[in-house]
């Protein structure tokens, strides 16, 4: 069992399928995510594939400060992702609301009120290097011993 589990752990840490959802960001974090795809950073060499399809994703990257339109849409989207799954907040907006968290604003941060957030990458926006190194350091940990802990 433990051998099988360690095999699963090592394979899962090298094959991460990613979907991203913009719940009211300014685009800054989204284009930094896109820059991760570029041949210079090349996240596919680490086994991270951006599908942008929740039904085959393991990791949901969330950018944005949760605008009211997503009130009834983010939770169903989160439910569509098969287990095991995690959500990672990218940028300041999902963590604290950034500069938008002021009186009279329409957004409703943090996103962790609505779906469970496993990790946060601060920065407005974070550099692609920061995004990649965080996801890489996260990869061996997030799905470690999933079957053992969720039996």
């Amino acid at each position, binding site marked *: 069992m433990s051998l099988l589990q360690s095999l699963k752990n090592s394979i899962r840490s090298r094959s991460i399928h990613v979907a991203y959802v913009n719940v009211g960001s300014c685009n800054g974090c989204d284009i930094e995510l896109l820059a991760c795809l570029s041949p210079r950073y090349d996240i596919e060499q680490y086994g991270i594939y951006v599908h942008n399809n929740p039904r085959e994703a393991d990791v949901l990257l969330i950018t944005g400060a949760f605008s009211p339109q997503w009130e009834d849409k983010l939770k169903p989207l989160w439910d569509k992702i098969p287990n095991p799954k995690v959500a990672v907040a990218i940028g300041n907006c999902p963590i604290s609301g950034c500069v938008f968290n002021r009186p*009279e604003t329409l957004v409703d941060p943090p996103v962790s009120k609505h779906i469970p957030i496993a990790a946060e990458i601060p920065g407005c926006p974070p550099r692609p290097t920061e995004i990649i190194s965080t996801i890489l350091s996260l990869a061996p940990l997030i799905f470690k011993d999933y079957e053992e802990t969720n039996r």
Partner: protein
Amino acid sequence: MKKTVDVSLPIGPMHPLFKEPCRIKCETRGEFVLSAEVELGYVKKGIERIMRGRPWQEVMFLAERVCGICSVVHNYVFIEAVENVSGIAPTERAAYLRVIVNELDRMQSHLLANYSYCYTIEHETLAMYLLNLRETVMDQLELITGARVTCAFIIPGGVRCDLSADGAASLRTALDHIDSELSRFVRIFETGPLIGLRSKGVGLLTKEAAIEAHAAGPTARASGIPDDLRNIHPTYRLLDFKPVIRYEGDNYARIMVRFEEVFQSTGLIRTALALMKEGPIRGGGTIKAGTVRYRGEAPRGELLYDLTTDEHGRILEIAIQTPSIMNIQVCAHAMLKNAQSAADITAIFISSDPCIACTER
């Protein structure tokens, strides 16, 4: 009763090809698109409500976060608007530095738009080439301003930091690199037979329709409207600026206009570097009371800031008009109508370079 509509085809708000959430609702008969409508409102944050009652040093950062792709131009136009109110003129060196950073931002925005288009028509090789070339531009932006996306470079009376001699030399090398690489990619785009099939004659926008729907920016310039607000900007006049125009009005023309504007931007930056003299980069000056409507040319078209300040420089009233809303509407009502294939819907939509974050704020 004959049935005219086969399928109401919704695209979005989560779609693998869209970077931002929005929904296109299409009425189709077979593959033929009868009509289309764009539903917005997924990223509304209420930035203008937050801006009210705040001084420039806070509104500047909010203005930058109206749109992350063209953040420099929002900063630029907002600061020039408040400078207009209070009669501040930037120092000469600062004016050229602003143009340099603004043109670098335009280059990365156009390269990103063309990347998205190539990715949408599934020419991933060219898309990745363009995305990698964009990193060269981002490096230069980071070298000058210290940040990749939200540069916070332009402040009333000047700019935040100076461009050193080393920086100017590395900028010149990067511009040469961009010119030589991009002319290769443009040749790939021009001669690619499959790209031609997906682009030429697809998403036609006639000049009349573009004028009627108030199209702006490269979308309008690809349909033969010589509208570019850089024409009337005092600093750009010194740089001998001429807008790029094409007359085809299809996807191909819109992408080619953006490519040519990147070449034009490298030329403008070279001229600005040559004309720039040593001098102070900050002139000081405080914001006074007044009302102004100030327009500037964003990568996507005309950007308008309409604001009122009080005697201590706080923003009392502000309204922002971004170019994307016109381009999205002209896309929905003129370009998507009579599209021959459902597969072209996303390609046509992306070719008008919609920026949803700009539109909804």
